[in-house]
């Protein structure tokens, strides 16, 4: 081969390969164009303002900030988060006043968590931790106290003198894979250092010198995408395709939520040190959102003197806890979830722990069902084959423990032997303090559909403090309820308040306005709506749920003495107010928000009422027969679990339902008239400001949108909404998450500087230029400042303080303004159904009322700043295992009262504008595609004004399991979902394997067959909700009626096009070169031959 031929071959290979790679790269990047643009901070739209306008920039700020510059925002975030942690940390145990420690006490801090705190969860609940203050530094006195440089960690007076050598040992161990805790979908490890190893460390020799106390800090983590294991062994809980053994962990019996053998060794070691007098006391800090079982505290196994629950501590929560430990602050938090003595005593866990509930099949082959029985194959098929039944019905958390306790005390038949202490370590609402409080002089005044409940609270201790006041309702469990399968818990939290800081001996009358609506119960099988029953209702003031029941029992004349000791403490009947009611099926049958009727709507979510149930039936827990209906999980001798979960068999109807709902070809019928596209009506979105959703001007505006713009808007919603040129709709930035924003400030995040900013604050922070029209950039905007990392939401709930919630909400809202975000993908308003849930740090409480009510001021303050909340994941997204499409079954009363209630309050009272729906199915119907759920509950009952979004559709398109269970097209056409939170580029197929795009249903003008006007109308309605929502966000700031939005090609795309062109030319040139030389050679040979 001659040199030229070699060169040609090389050129062909190189240019050909480059061309192939560029085609591939271009295909991939074009399919993810918006994701890449967002990541690079290169927006695809740009604002053009009219020159010489008289409009001042300041006048175009439709949502004002309370802060002058970014440093103020950042500084305030640290202060608010510390306050949140201060009031939400719960003192569980404090024997012999072990706490507070004297300031400057010499202490040993044990546990790798001391060097590696649990600041926040993983996944969508992740928070910024760059400026977080760790446990050691908090004890050393560090904080973010300098307003002029808020990120600087400033050393103040040491709160505690820690054994530095021991801290150094643990810092090393915390990075040692043998001891380092880990978490994640396939790698859960508690970690920590065995006591024998601790004793070999250099710091151990100084333990006696720091013997004022031993502080042992332990943690449990969690996050999106996985639940916490309760046992080791083979299971499919993490969605691995082969159901392989992957949950082996170092917990006792593989249980992540018990003390591990290593932790037990440390506590035993500390107990010995205390016995021998080397240390004076042992203080345990539970740095976890998912509490471990507390049998060892209840039994005093290790002589722990004091125990504090902190949740995940956010950026500076450690500082608050340090101040609490040393008495600078006083505890005032109350647990927002039941703390169990033994997690196996929580009956929910029969239908939760290590969830691996596959449908059984009527016939093992069942080819007509269209999916494979996973028991027969290695294939993982969670989206079609897993389910979970909320068999506990109404009896979730304290509603179970307190109700069964009351029935036990009252001697109700079929209650069984119920030893409360064996079940509950600390009841819902419980929290101790350095002082004590007395509740008295309860007064109840009926107002219009509400009660003013006034309680006099007196500080009877020796130090100042504040306390929550919890108001419970006890409804009558009447014959009517029994006849209609209604379950009525003993007590239910319906509101709460909190005192101001009371000095010793001081009193305060706290008045709490209680919504009478929460007296009603949903009567599925009778009136088919909310009712109050004939009988006596009680309003109860208490410091926790158990005290509420004891107060109720006292009102009923019960004492420990006359109940043979079954009642475990005296109650205070003076804190109970009896109210007589008549049967009423009218008052609460209409939505208090929309006045639309509330009717029985969710038969399809209850397997007992679902039409295609076949022979399936579930016995929900019943007060009538505790022994017969409650089946607690058990642990076998080898440590594995025996769960008596509800068993379901898949029916043909269920299988068809699951398949059909994702088949656009089957679900979408021809018919209807398309709306107008591309009209020239001269309107911009801003012209609709202040107009109602029904205003006819909306139609004129929507007529201006082209088909392609509509498709683009509905197809690209990952953490944003698209800009639309024809109506001058700005792009919006929507960001995680459930615990507040998680962003770094900068121009890029705001999309400003180069384009129309989603919000002007990102670049105005330096103030205005002399002309009053242009901004002077804040020099700090690109200095790496980050949004606040808040504590786990259970901490906020535990504050029982609406003012704190409002402060947190205000901070999040401000961070949205300054970060150029107009949507928060949160708050996390699902229910802490089981402590094994992965997303525990994102959720507030086991109680829907507490969740909803504490969120109201938080949502209000966020919304006030033009940041719309996408409260999520609505609804029944209480587990992560097989979350993609797991069929979730629950009866309607429990669905409404225990789960939907939180969202209902968030929308109706909080004013949450948007909702993100759940990953799971409601029965067989994926929430994202459930027309009934959106139309009846979210729109008709709650009056949701804005966007219904789902992040399940995209996730399944290209997700880990690669198995779709919804169609984004059907979601929209069903009017169940307005925005699929994913980027589908120009209009890529519904999901891998689907042939459908929006274009499949397009009008002829857009290249379709023009037969699906109904699809066009549904797309228009979805667009309208997105526009209506956008109009009331801070994304509109900086836009005047003269402004225009134009779409631009981001710089990176231009670069890719340029490279594509060069490579194509090189390849073409190579081909030409080869062909030309071949022809010339051929001619030469031919000539020679001739």
């Amino acid at each position, binding site marked *: 081969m001659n040199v030229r031929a070699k060169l040609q071959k090389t050129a062909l290979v190189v240019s050909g390969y480059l061309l192939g790679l560029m085609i591939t790269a271009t295909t991939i990047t074009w399919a993810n164009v918006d994701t890449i643009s967002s990541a690079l901070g290169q927006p695809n739209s740009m604002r053009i303002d009219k020159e010489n306008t008289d409009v001042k920039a300041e006048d175009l700020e439709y949502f004002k900030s309370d802060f002058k510059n970014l440093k103020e925002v950042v500084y305030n975030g640290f202060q608010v988060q510390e306050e949140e942690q201060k009031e939400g940390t719960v003192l569980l145990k404090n024997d012999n006043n072990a706490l507070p420690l004297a300031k400057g006490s010499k202490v040993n801090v044990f546990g790798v968590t001391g060097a590696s705190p649990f600041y926040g969860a993983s996944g969508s609940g992740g928070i910024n931790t760059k400026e977080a203050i760790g446990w050691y530094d908090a004890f050393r006195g560090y904080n973010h106290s300098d307003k002029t440089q808020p990120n600087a960690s400033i050393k103040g007076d040491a709160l505690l003198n820690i054994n530095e050598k021991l801290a150094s040992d643990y810092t090393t161990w915390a990075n040692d894979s043998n001891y380092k805790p880990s978490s994640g*979908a396939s790698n859960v490890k508690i970690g920590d250092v065995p006591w024998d190893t601790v004793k070999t460390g250099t710091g151990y020799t100084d333990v006696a010198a720091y013997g004022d106390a031993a502080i042992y800090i332990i943690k449990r983590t969690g996050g999106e995408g996985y639940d916490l294991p309760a046992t080791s062994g083979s299971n499919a809980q993490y969605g691995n395709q082969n159901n392989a053994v992957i949950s082996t962990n170092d917990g006792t019996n593989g249980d992540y939520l018990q003390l591990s053998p290593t932790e037990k060794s440390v506590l035993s070691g500390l107990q010995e040190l205390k016995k021998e007098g080397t240390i004076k006391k042992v203080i345990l800090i539970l740095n976890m959102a998912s509490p471990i079982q507390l049998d060892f505290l209840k039994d005093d196994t290790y002589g722990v003197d004091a125990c504090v629950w902190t949740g995940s501590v956010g950026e500076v929560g450690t500082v608050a806890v340090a101040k609490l430990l040393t008495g600078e602050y006083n505890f005032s938090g109350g647990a927002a979830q039941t703390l169990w003595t033994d997690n196996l005593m929580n009956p929910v866990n029969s239908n939760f722990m290590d969830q691996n509930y596959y449908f059984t099949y009527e016939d093992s082959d069942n080819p007509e069902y269209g999916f494979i029985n996973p028991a027969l194959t290695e294939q993982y098929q969670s989206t079609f084959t897993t389910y979970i039944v909320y068999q506990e019905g109404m009896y979730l958390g304290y509603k179970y423990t307190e109700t069964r306790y009351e029935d036990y005390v009252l001697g109700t038949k079929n209650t069984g032997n119920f030893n409360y202490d064996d079940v509950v370590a600390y009841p819902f609402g419980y929290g101790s303090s350095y002082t004590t409080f007395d509740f008295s002089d309860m007064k109840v005044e009926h107002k219009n559909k509400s009660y003013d409940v006034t309680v006099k609270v007196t500080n009877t201790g020796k130090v100042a403090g504040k306390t929550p006041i919890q108001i419970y309702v006890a409804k009558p469990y009447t014959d009517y309820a029994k006849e209609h399968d209604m379950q009525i818990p003993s007590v239910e939290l319906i509101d709460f308040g909190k005192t101001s800081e009371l000095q010793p001996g001081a009193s305060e009358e706290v008045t709490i306005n209680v919504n009478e609506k929460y007296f009603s119960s949903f009567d599925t099988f009778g009136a088919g709506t909310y009712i109050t029953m004939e009988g006596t209702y009680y309003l109860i003031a208490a410091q926790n749920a158990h005290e509420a029941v004891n107060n109720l029992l006292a009102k009923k004349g019960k004492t420990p003495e006359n109940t043979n000791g079954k009642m475990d403490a005296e109650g205070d009947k003076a804190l109970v107010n009896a109210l007589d009611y008549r049967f009423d099926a009218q008052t609460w049958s209409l939505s208090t928000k929309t006045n639309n009727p509330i009717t029985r709507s969710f038969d399809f979510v209850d397997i007992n009422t679902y039409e295609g149930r076949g022979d399936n039936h579930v016995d929900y827990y019943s007060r009538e027969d505790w022994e017969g209906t409650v089946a607690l999980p058990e642990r076998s001798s080898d440590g594995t679990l025996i769960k008596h979960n509800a068993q379901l068999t898949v029916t043909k109807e269920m299988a068809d339902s699951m398949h059909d709902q994702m088949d656009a070809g089957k679900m979408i019928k021809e018919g209807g008239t398309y709306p107008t596209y591309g009209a020239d009506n001269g309107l911009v979105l801003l012209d609709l400001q202040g107009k109602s959703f029904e205003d006819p001007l909306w139609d004129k505006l929507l007529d201006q949108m082209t088909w392609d713009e509509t498709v683009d808007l509905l197809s690209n919603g990952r953490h944003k909404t698209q800009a639309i040129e024809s109506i001058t709709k700005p792009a919006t930035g929507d960001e995680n998450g459930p615990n507040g924003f998680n962003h770094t400030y900068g121009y890029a995040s705001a999309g400003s500087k180069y384009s129309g900013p989603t919000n002007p604050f990102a670049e105005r922070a330096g103030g205005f230029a002399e002309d009053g029209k242009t901004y002077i950039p804040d020099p700090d905007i690109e200095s790496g400042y980050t949004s606040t990392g808040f504590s786990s939401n259970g901490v906020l709930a535990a504050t029982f303080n609406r003012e704190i919630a409002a402060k947190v909400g205000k901070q999040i809202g401000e961070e949205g303004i300054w970060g150029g975000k107009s949507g928060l993908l949160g708050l996390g308003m699902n229910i802490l159904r089981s402590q094994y849930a992965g997303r525990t740090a994102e959720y507030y409480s086991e109680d829907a009322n507490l969740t909803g009510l504490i969120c109201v001021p938080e949502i209000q303050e966020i919304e006030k700043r033009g940041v719309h909340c996408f409260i999520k994941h609505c609804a029944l997204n209480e587990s992560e295992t097989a979350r993609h499409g797991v069929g979730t079954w629950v009866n309607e009363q429990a669905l409404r009262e225990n789960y939907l209630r939180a969202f209902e309050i968030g929308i109706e009272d909080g004013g949450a504008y948007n909702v993100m729906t759940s990953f799971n199915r409601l029965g067989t119907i994926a929430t994202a595609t459930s027309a009934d759920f959106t139309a009846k509950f979210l729109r008709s009952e709650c009056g949701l004004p804005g966007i219904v979004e789902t992040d399940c559709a995209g996730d399944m398109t290209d997700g880990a399991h690669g198995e779709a269970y919804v169609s984004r097209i059907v979601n929209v056409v069903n009017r169940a979902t307005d925005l699929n939170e994913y980027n589908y580029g120009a209009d890529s197929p519904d999901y891998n394997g689907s042939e459908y795009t929006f274009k499949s249903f397009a009008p002829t003008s857009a290249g379709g067959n023009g037969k699906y006007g109904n699809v066009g109308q549904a797309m228009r309605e979805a667009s309208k909700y997105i526009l209506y929502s956008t109009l009331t966000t801070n994304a509109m700031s900086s836009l005047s009626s003269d402004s225009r939005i134009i779409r631009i090609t981001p710089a990176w795309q231009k670069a890719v096009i340029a490279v594509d062109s060069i490579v194509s030319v090189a390849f073409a040139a190579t081909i030409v070169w080869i062909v030309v030389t071949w022809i010339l050679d051929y001619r030469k040979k031919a000539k020679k031959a001739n």
Partner: protein
Amino acid sequence: MEKIVNFFKDKSYGFYVTIISIIFTIITFSVYVRSYSKFDAYISWVGFYFMVVGAVLALITIILKRYSWAPIILAATNFIGLLYFILKIYNYVTVVLVGIDLTSVSATFITCTVLFAINVVLSTANVFFKQSHPVELGAKENN
């Protein structure tokens, strides 16, 4: 026996690389299809078919004694197979990078990636290798 000896007598080292490359191609697409056939999101059947066709055509060219075409066909089809592999598997890589549903890459992914990489490198390098000795080549071969 003599036929066999004669057959290999004029073959250069490139020919043997071609044989190895064909075998490697078969191994690669077999492992690929076994690993991902149940995952529509991650498998490219187009890429798979390209590799199958490439291996078959390479064998045919050898049978037809068009030895120099075999490495070109293999290089082209294996490279196209790799591109289609990338086109699909990036979805999986994205999931891992997001770190929620998956936190680390699987052995399956690593195996397939390594196989595809070796396959393409091998078949590409082979394009530049001599397949047979020109002296003993018939009129059909001039590599």
